[in-house]
């Protein structure tokens, strides 16, 4: 918290944007693979039934 107080507003905004971007990109990179792994455990009927 003390470190946060030492930071300038511009640095705080940069850090927020930095983490949001990095977490977002990581999620985009792993989501298709995670979905694929979960699908591997489904039965044919579950797989063929659209989720929506």
């Amino acid at each position, binding site marked *: 918290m003390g470190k946060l107080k030492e930071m300038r507003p*511009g640095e705080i905004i*940069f850090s927020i944007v*930095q*983490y949001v*971007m*990095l*977490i977002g*990109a*990581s*999620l*985009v*990179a*792993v*989501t*298709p*693979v995670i*979905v*694929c792994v979960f*699908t591997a455990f489904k039965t044919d009927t579950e797989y063929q039934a*659209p*989720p*929506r």
Partner: protein
Amino acid sequence: MSNQQLSSKPQEKQTLLNKLRSGKAQRVLVMLTFMLVPLLLLFVFTYLPFIKMVQFSFYNRTYLDEGTWVGLKNYIDVFQRDDIFGSLAVSLYYMGGSVVQLALALFFASLMVFKAKGSAIYKACMFFPYLICGIAVGFIFKFFYAHGYVLDSILGLFGVALEDCPLWLQDMRINNIALVGTSVWRYTGQNMVLFLGAMMSVDNELYEAASLDGAGRWQQFKYIILPSIKTIIVLNLILSISGSLSAFEPPYVITNGTMGTGTYFVIMNRIAHENQKVGLACAMAIVLLAIIILCTVGQNLFFKYVFKDGAEDDAVRAQRKAERKAARLAKAKKGVA
């Protein structure tokens, strides 16, 4: 024959043997022996098939028959047939995608170079797609883009109705963009790691000194990072553009090149293996090689122009060094005199 000539022959033999026994000759012999195997392998598995491919491109032949000589007809067909030359237009999507991919990779690498907690996890997550083989990526995205499945479900979470979701792989206006997305997804992490490696080699003190002087993130990026990694940027761009011209796996696995998604390689594969027109496929390969060489040379010239300032700096520095050396030599000569 005179006696002198008869006696000189054994002497010559002896000198040849002596030469062969000398250390220098032995070194050359060892060098040649070690080089022989790799050179032979290189010739048999790389250059010989290439020479054969050039030869086949002048024939109308299948895999089994000898074929007939047709001269330049195959090359003319490559440029005249819409399905072949038109498929190069699809490669433009992949070229555009490669530029986006490099921009994203540079952006994320720059974000990571400014210390972020857990950067190893983000790096691993983003590099992970590159470790999956192309065919598996194709299958993952075939399911991902299917109507009503993963992507549509994710969009549904943001309030997009299923009826409003486009047919990602069937709609000819967007299917190539969707396929390019898979390539961008797969290779961004790899490019990012390459950029990050180059950025890490920059001395940390430079960043510290710059921030002490009041330089912001953007200025640090513009004046420290970018000039230090220009070689890697050029290398990545050349690799990405040549890779985009030879894109194969996403369209082949996901759509089988149908609905206007057939890239040059997919069409070449169809012509060679399904239509058995080996000569035409070989001509296509040669034309693609020529296009890739032209693009690479063009890019090199472009970057020489873009980074002209840096090259000029180097030239000026080299000239000054030469002048200093000449002055030192002149001074030394004067001293001797």
